[in-house]
């Protein structure tokens, strides 16, 4: 027997496999970051790469985000395809000039002459008591700023396909993985973090949402770990006779507005769930998209669940209070149905 009938991976291993295969295919692809080499990435996204490709292509850096992200921008400008890992998205504050004034804008500043084909990979999300400077998602912050694509996979299949797409894309791509979807042993076990992943390389298009579950009564649009929560909520709702459609946006920039509108025209009700802050963020953008494009289809005011505008608490009880979960999503969906 030479083939497996099925092959599953955790999301973490799917990301590492995508990078490994792209590094094997294209020798301009390389990785830089803190603890991405010997340690394999603190969340395992670069596991095994140093042994296979050596320290010239898998570079452990000092704690110097401005330095190595700037170096990645320079390498991308010169024709390489770097992947830089910002260990936690919360750390963006120490390197935002390189991210936003250089990575995101050089293509524009050069009149379209100088592409910056790099991937900035970073970990996001809470739920494991890591406090307010290690638990944010912040994707709305980056999606707000023009010049970067922003992708957020929720499962192993998309994680691999979106990473391959991000590496091959000639634009800078912010690749954000939620720590809770990786399938890491030290996090709360999450069965949805392990799934079928084809061994051969493939792409998942950036800017296309996925219907994670079809339904007819209410649309639940979300991203990242909240997709899992929404799928759990949809199971609960089904028991109550409510059919929820779960849309995994997968990409905030570009945002698949047509997928949102198509679903709202079908279900006539919209709930947006986000583990990012409530104000000025993804929930407002998605709801506005629905109101602007499918106002007449809406049978109730759109609703949203997001982090209230407070820092993420360290206390487990308080943190769970502010995070979206299946019960909150199911409750909000029921309220929408009866509205």
């Amino acid at each position: 027997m030479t083939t497996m009938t099925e092959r599953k991976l955790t999301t973490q291993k799917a990301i590492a496999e995508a990078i490994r295969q792209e590094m094997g295919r294209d020798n301009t692809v390389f990785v830089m970051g803190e603890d991405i080499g010997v340690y394999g990435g603190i969340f395992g996204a670069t596991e095994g790469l140093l042994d296979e490709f050596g320290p010239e292509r898998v570079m452990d850096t000092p704690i110097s985000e401005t330095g190595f992200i700037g170096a990645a921008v320079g390498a991308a400008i010169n024709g390489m395809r770097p992947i830089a890992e910002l260990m936690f998205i919360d750390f963006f504050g120490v390197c935002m000039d390189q991210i936003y004034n250089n990575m995101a804008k050089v293509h524009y500043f050069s009149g379209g002459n100088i592409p910056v084909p790099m991937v900035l990979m970073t970990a996001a999300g809470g739920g494991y008591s890591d406090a307010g400077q290690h638990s944010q998602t912040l994707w709305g912050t980056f999606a707000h700023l023009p010049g970067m694509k922003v992708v957020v996979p929720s499962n192993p299949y998309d994680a691999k396909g979106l990473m391959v797409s991000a590496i091959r894309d000639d634009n800078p791509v912010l690749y954000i993985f939620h720590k809770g979807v990786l399938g890491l042993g030290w996090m709360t076990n999450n069965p949805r973090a392990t799934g079928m992943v084809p061994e051969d390389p493939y792409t998942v298009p950036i800017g296309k949402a996925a219907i994670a579950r079809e339904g007819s009564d209410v649309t639940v649009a979300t991203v990242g770990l909240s997709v899992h929560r929404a799928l759990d909520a949809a199971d609960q709702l089904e028991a109550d006779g409510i059919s929820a459609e779960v849309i995994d946006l997968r990409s905030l920039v570009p945002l698949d507005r047509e997928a949102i509108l198509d679903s709202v025209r079908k279900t006539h009700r919209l709930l947006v769930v986000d583990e990012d802050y409530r104000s000025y963020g993804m929930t407002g953008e998605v709801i506005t998209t629905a109101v602007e494009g499918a106002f007449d289809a809406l049978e109730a005011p759109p609703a949203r669940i997001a982090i209230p505008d407070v820092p993420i608490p360290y206390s487990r009880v308080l943190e769970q209070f502010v995070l979206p979960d299946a019960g909150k999503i199911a409750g909000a969906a029921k309220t929408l149905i009866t509205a």
Partner: protein
Amino acid sequence: MAIEVLMPFITDGGEEGVVTAWMVDEGSSVATGALIAEVQVEKVSQDVLAPVDGVVIGLVPINHPTAQGAPICRIVGMDELM
């Protein structure tokens, strides 16, 4: 003959480990060297590869405490299933 796949020895201290992810389902066919599970002892993770070709059966549940050196599943040769 069924081959037992064991929880690897990761520490010297005799702590129990757990399977944190199964990459196969009960009854999946695997080839020698295929990744079948990720296990963890004292927060140290390790991959478990199939030692032989065959069909994987008797998977211990995720997060079920298992002694290092104790079986986490068995692999049965296809010829035995025929």
